[in-house]
């Protein structure tokens, strides 16, 4: 009744009621896990990773998997005021009753939401304050590759592909009652990191001087993607999800090796699903959900070797379904794809404005290719183009920024000469600040300062504030915090806790993000953002060095050197580059 009263007063109450179409009927089981997504319902409902993990856990006997999302501010406050603990959506059980909470860590800025969810569930935030009566708190997803900033809050992390190792974890949880025994047992699995089993020491220079205990964790890799677990249905959100469509994963890993792109290095080796498997998965997803759109996901779908064959098959079997191809690269944009979709806008990401800088970042797309692709798009009747660039990349100069402007002007010129539509062209240019990320060749680089950021934006504004062009950029403080948390060490757990206690929450949402809170939280613990955004020496111990991403540090160093000498490595399609993985895995290219 109280809950009903609350639901009547909050925004989008359907986020909190469960009962979605396609939801399994759950029963309380021997091992009960709740997948927790530290962002709102409509964002989480679009996430493929949590569905894969859910499906794989459900295949283990005795296991039940439920889910929970972070509540929006209004609902969170109402739960708190009415002393209602945060509950799961399927069984409507308090999160505290579960045996394990599995947090999906997609984005560094969601860390305070992890704390808020635990807090709303009346679960102590620090792992050392939780006894056996509390659920095991587990984290996974891309951010788990450098879990150190949030090490104090979690009992264990899964690093790498989750579908197989999560099943092993569930089986061990069914076997061991004692938390200590369980953590000891799981820590022997590839892909499992138990922070309490490793100690980190710091030297006088405030840098890490060494680690002890269990000091090496190798990422988990799902060897055979084609036979890997994949849900044949998905729940249809009560409210429209950010991406309200069916999703299949055509490949994992990316052959391109762009030097700034963390995902490109984390998800290696490169693996594909077969056309036959994908077709089966697509048909069953569309039949079971009623979605009219199917998205072919991967980091670079245009590189999927059988894309044309797959599109043909899908067109035959699912003639009414719209096919979405996200993350299509400029050079793989061919006529066949454009005529498939009725979209009037084209999105692509040259990332840098000059050929020189694109060579530095190993984005091997040429001026010519960009032009050809734009021309083709114009011919098919496209009237709006979205461009994504990065600024603050290593070695960037004013000339490279001017290059961004040149690309935009060139597109305008091409359009006026070749236009098919009477409508004038709209170009939106979006610039984000480069964030050096762990496990990339740029993991040692520095991030630009606020002064540099402002100068660069001013330069771009001068030339991009023109008719028909919409120029936007990311908030600097958000990018800075992301950089701090991405390359952070364990000392940041205290900072995150202080920030949360001082009111930081829903940081990924601009209306809630308060940089001052983070500033003072860092200061309170004798740290500053520049401790993390500075250039890192190649011989210093990095917080994430204990994680074995299998791609070797030597390879990353070589790539870094090649970046500075403007040498393109190119794509793995032109031959294996020997990143280290080849010793254990075979990329089928």
């Amino acid at each position: 009744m109280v809950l009903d009263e609350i639901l009547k007063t909050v925004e989008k109450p359907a986020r909190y009621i469960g009962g979605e179409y396609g939801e399994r009927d759950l029963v309380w089981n021997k091992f009960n896990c709740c997948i927790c997504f530290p962002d709102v319902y409509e964002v989480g409902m679009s996430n493929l990773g949590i569905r894969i993990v859910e499906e794989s856990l459900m295949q283990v006997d005795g296991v039940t998997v439920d889910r929970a999302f972070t509540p929006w501010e209004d609902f969170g406050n109402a739960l708190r005021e009415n002393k209602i603990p945060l509950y799961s959506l399927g069984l409507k059980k308090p999160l505290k009753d579960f045996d394990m909470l599995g947090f999906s860590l997609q984005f560094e800025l969601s860390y305070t939401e992890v704390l808020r969810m635990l807090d709303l569930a009346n679960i102590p935030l620090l792992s050392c304050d939780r006894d056996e009566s509390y659920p095991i708190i587990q984290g996974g997803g891309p951010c788990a590759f450098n879990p150190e900033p949030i090490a104090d809050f979690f009992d264990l992390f899964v690093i790498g592909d989750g579908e197989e190792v999560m099943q092993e974890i569930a089986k061990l949880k069914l076997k061991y009652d004692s938390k200590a025994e369980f953590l000891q047992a799981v820590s022997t699995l590839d892909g499992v990191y138990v922070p309490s089993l490793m100690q980190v020491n710091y030297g006088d220079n405030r840098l890490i001087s060494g680690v002890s205990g269990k000091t090496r964790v190798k990422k988990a890799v799902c060897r055979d993607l084609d036979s890997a677990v994949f849900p044949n249905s998905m729940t249809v959100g009560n409210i429209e999800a950010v991406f309200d469509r069916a999703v299949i994963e055509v490949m994992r890993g990316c052959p391109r090796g762009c030097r700034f792109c963390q995902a490109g290095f984390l998800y290696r080796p490169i693996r594909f699903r077969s056309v036959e498997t994908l077709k089966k998965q697509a048909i069953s997803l569309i039949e079971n959900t009623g979605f009219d759109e199917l998205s072919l996901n991967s980091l670079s779908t245009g590189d999927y070797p059988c894309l044309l064959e797959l599109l043909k098959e899908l067109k035959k079997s699912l003639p009414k379904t719209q096919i979405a191809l996200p993350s299509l690269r400029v050079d793989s944009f061919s006529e066949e794809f454009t005529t498939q979709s009725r979209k009037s806008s084209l999105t692509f990401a040259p990332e840098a404005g000059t050929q020189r800088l694109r060579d530095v970042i190993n984005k091997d797309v040429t001026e010519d290719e960009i032009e050809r692709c734009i021309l083709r798009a114009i011919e098919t009747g496209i009237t709006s183009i979205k461009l994504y660039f990065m600024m603050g990349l290593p070695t960037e100069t004013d000339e490279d920024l001017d290059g961004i402007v040149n690309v935009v002007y060139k597109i305008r010129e091409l359009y006026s000469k070749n236009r098919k539509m009477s409508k004038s062209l709209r170009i939106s240019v979006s610039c984000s600040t480069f964030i050096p990320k762990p496990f990339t060749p740029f993991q040692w680089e520095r991030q630009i300062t606020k002064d540099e950021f402002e100068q660069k934006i001013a330069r771009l504004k001068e030339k991009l504030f023109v008719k028909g062009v919409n120029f936007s950029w990311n908030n600097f403080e958000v990018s800075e915090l992301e950089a701090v948390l991405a390359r952070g060490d364990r000392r940041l757990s205290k900072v995150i806790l202080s920030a949360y206690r001082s009111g930081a929450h829903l940081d990924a949402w601009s209306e809630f993000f308060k940089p001052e809170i983070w500033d003072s939280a860092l200061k309170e613990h004798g740290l500053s953002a520049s401790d993390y955004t500075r250039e890192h020496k190649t011989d210093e111990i990095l917080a994430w060095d204990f994680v074995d991403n299998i791609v070797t540090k030597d390879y990353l160093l070589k790539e870094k050197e090649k970046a500075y000498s403007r040498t393109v490595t190119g794509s793995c399609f032109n031959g294996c580059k020997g990143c280290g993985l080849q010793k254990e895995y075979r990329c089928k290219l």
Partner: protein
Amino acid sequence: MIIFRYSKLGGAEYISHLDTLRHIGKTLIRAKISVEYSQGFNPHMQIYLSPPVFVGLKSRSEYCLVETDEKAQSFIEKFNRYSPKNIKCITAFETQKKHKIAGLIDSAEYIFFCENKFDTNKILSQNEIFVDLKGVSKDIRNKIIDLNFVTDNVLIARLSFGNDLLRADIFAKYLTDNFTKVLDYEKTEAFISGKRPEDCLE
């Protein structure tokens, strides 16, 4: 064409009007009920809902017109097999005319579960009843069509709907403020000039 009546209960009352339309569309696709699409660049399914109710109102009397050749009985079975748990088809009938149900429904019946019974003439005998609607005082008397206690706690109320809508939550607040605490309520019937759509539309 089919007009069907459906319920939104057990949580589905919190699904907005637009999302309800989205769920009905997906249900029809899953159920493989073939529905006409509009012409044009962005074709959409020809389905039309009765007037929106506010988010949070439980209802057993929502209506929807679908352009389809499906027969009523098989429509009900197929729909319910593929619809979300808490959006269920109660009845359906075939019609030849594309009735604009959104504009036709002019009153609705509700059950109010009350703490105590009171003399409903205290309301019905008044000539005007002013309530505060977002800072504006409005007369709701002529929107209250009929009131009847069927047990000591259950009040059946017929209230104006459509263009001249009196929202059930506003009426519930009026009852709570002046007569008895309302514990819960739901919409049970919708009427076109006093008749249920299934009894008057052909």
